[in-house]
């Protein structure tokens, strides 16, 4: 916790002044009590004045499911994060579209993460995990975020796009700047940097698209899938739609799994009895992976915009209002999840969490994410008795990405 930061006292601040859009709550890992109060005292909360404009917060599990499932009333257009994207880069992506356009574009790329394909990817992922883990220093302090989490997920992403492997660090960079602007999520990326980076991303992928066009064979990378589907075969001619969807797939396949790969190490260190359970029974890994994804909630929220006036849980929501579903709050809702504040690797029903969202926009890469994390932990447990956290984590300043830029660790065999 940065001691210089003065955050309002969560228990005494008047309800109507609670502003959960403040990115410092997440940077300082201070968000829990604010949401606890909202869930208990004002579960559908109106904030009339925030740096992102007025917005509603939906904080309980069941209410989030209800909003997420009602795409007729709660639109994903124009965008799914708290801040508006602005018109300098009017990127369009299917996560921020309603049916029918959403359905058509999502269907084009969905096969890449169908579990049938994942079975083929499993051995590749395992060999990469093994390579990463076998090259880590034992007994020396290093940053787990850079050397494991980013390394693993960026390699995977390069494979999904069939992106030049030696340039894959660019994918991480584009992912970080895409959602990192102050007016979008409260981050620190300047408008100039973001613009330059995303234009580089667009140019790079446009070049790859044209090089790949007409290539023989039935490649299953995301670019080839978009080219093969008649509904998206000319997407490159609509640059903002092309950029938006590429950006979506980069962020979706990168930030999320990366931060769960780090969050799991932290959670096990904060809960040594759970780490002991895992050592005693590595068969708990699949359930633990779901629990890590719940505990971390790599994306804190998704935003909708009301298409009509609607009364919701006694509150009058007006057409055009921003409605923010706080997934990280839903995942701590004890009325839906027993002992929701605790990290328990052998929960009875670990898949019942909200991190992937619900409804038609539910995460399409969820099984790939679970598989990567499962393999990471299977191979880690074979090699190391203890991945010890030896310093404080540094968290990302964002109200959207629940991430880490650093987690110092030491390995013990």
């Amino acid at each position, binding site marked *: 916790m940065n001691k210089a930061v003065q955050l309002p006292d969560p228990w005494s601040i008047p309800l109507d002044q609670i502003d959960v859009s403040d990115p410092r709550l997440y940077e300082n890992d201070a968000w829990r009590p604010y949401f606890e109060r909202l869930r208990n005292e004002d579960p559908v909360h109106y904030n009339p004045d925030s740096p992102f404009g007025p917005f509603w917060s939906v904080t309980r599990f069941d209410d989030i499911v209800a909003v997420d499932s009602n795409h007729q009333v709660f639109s994903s257009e124009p965008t799914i994060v708290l801040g508006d994207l602005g018109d300098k880069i009017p990127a369009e992506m299917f996560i921020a579209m309603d049916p029918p356009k959403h359905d058509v574009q999502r269907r084009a790329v969905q096969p890449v993460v169908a579990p049938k394909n994942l079975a083929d990817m499993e051995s590749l992922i395992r060999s990469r995990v093994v390579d990463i883990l076998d090259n880590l220093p034992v007994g020396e302090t290093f940053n787990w975020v850079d050397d494991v989490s980013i390394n693993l997920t960026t390699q995977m992403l390069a494979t999904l796009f069939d992106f030049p492997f030696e340039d894959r660090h660019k994918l991480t960079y584009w992912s970080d700047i895409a959602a990192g602007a102050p007016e979008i999520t409260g981050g620190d990326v300047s408008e100039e940097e973001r613009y330059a980076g995303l234009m580089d991303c667009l140019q790079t992928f446009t070049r790859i698209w044209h090089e790949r066009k007409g290539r023989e064979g039935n490649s299953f990378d995301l670019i080839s899938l978009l080219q093969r589907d008649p509904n998206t075969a000319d997407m490159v001619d609509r640059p903002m739609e092309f950029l938006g969807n590429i950006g979506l797939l980069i962020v979706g396949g990168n930030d999320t799994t990366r931060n769960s790969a780090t969050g799991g190490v932290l959670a096990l260190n904060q809960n040594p009895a759970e780490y002991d359970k895992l050592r005693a029974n590595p068969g708990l890994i699949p359930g633990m992976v779901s629990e890590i994804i719940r505990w971390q909630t790599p994306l804190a929220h998704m935003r909708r915009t009301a298409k009509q006036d609607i009364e919701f849980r006694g509150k009058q929501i007006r057409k055009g209002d921003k409605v923010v579903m706080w997934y990280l709050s839903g995942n701590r809702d004890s009325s839906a999840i027993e002992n929701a504040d605790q990290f328990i690797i052998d929960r009875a029903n670990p898949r019942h969490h909200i991190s992937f969202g*619900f409804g038609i926009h539910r995460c399409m890469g969820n099984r790939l994410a679970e598989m990567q994390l499962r393999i990471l932990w299977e191979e880690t447990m074979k090699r190391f008795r203890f991945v010890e956290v030896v310093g404080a984590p540094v968290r990302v300043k964002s109200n959207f990405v629940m991430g880490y830029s650093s987690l110092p660790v030491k390995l013990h065999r």
Partner: protein
Amino acid sequence: MPKITLIEFNGRDHTIEAEVGKSLMQNALDNGVPGIDADCGGACACGTCHCFIDGEWRAVAGEGDAMEEAMLGMRPDRSEGSRLACQIPVSAAMDGLVVRLPEYQM
């Protein structure tokens, strides 16, 4: 209690004595039938209780509503007879129902 047979993708079949009024999803879970994940717990919101109803039983099982249709539309392996098991309340008329499970849930 109607007897319902669920057939995993690998061909292994499970005949259960189903409880009328409960959903097909809940009946499958209560009887430990593998192949139904039910991530959302039965809210028609995740698509992980996807199943296929055999031809002659489709009229008995009925048709899904618009939301179920939207969720099924996201499935690459969607086909005729696709339903979400959480949206099928078991009735006495379902004695003998045959349900096939997909290769995977996602």
